[in-house]
């Protein structure tokens, strides 16, 4: 994989499952980030257990952490 370069890559690592969505899936910026209403768990569609979006700075920090790890592993 190339060096992590998008916040979605970080979001996937912050929580598991389909906890987030975009108001515009072709413009995936933090301002368009939303929580999903429902998730699929063990065959049932239930309320999203994640109730609060991470802050933009927290998302960016996670992305930077992943980039640093990638840099360390790939020289």
């Amino acid at each position, binding site marked *: 994989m190339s060096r992590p370069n998008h916040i979605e890559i970080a979001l*996937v690592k912050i929580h*598991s499952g*389909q906890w987030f969505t975009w108001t515009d899936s072709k413009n995936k910026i933090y301002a368009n980030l939303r929580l999903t209403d*429902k998730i*699929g768990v063990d065959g049932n*569609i239930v309320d999203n257990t994640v109730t609060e979006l991470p802050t933009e700075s927290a998302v960016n920090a996670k992305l930077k952490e992943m980039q640093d790890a990638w840099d360390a592993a790939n020289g």
Partner: protein
Amino acid sequence: MALSKIDVANMLTGATPVANGGTALTSGFVNGITMVDQWRLTTSFSGNADPIASNWERVDTDSDGVPVGTGMSESSGIFTFPSTGIYIIKYQGVGHGLAHSQRLSWNIQVTTNNSSYDMGSNHHEHLRFYGSSLDTWCSGFCEHVLDVTNTTNVKVRFGFGAGQGGEECIGDSGGTYTGVSFTRIGDT
């Protein structure tokens, strides 16, 4: 006198012969494929989704050409058919893992009572672990032929299983990684 046109409606009777020993055509015909639709996952996620309940969109890039006819409708990951008939459902998936080495699964789930779902088709793929800093990819595919006798009760949805929980199912709105297609091939 040379004929420039043949009045098929009035002059043609009986069976129309077929070349090379085929069976003669004796009845009216309609177009074989009247419905095709294709949807995809727009957003990646990690872990299980049973079912994938959000982030579906109809494929809308690269002169996709869908839907043909009236397409599927989707709500919370549950797909409803536009009419009764025999359908081929295809489900492709792309998985990714970093420091995970368990199997991934993609499955088509079917209900005939609009309530409880059974496994229609399932594909498992093993994601090989190369090292803690090396990521790996894999793909999965399964298909199911479904007789939709009732559009209210017969529906489908799609699942993803992550063996260790950290594996990802890849979605993208710019091109299809994980997606499904529906083709109606005939009457029920």
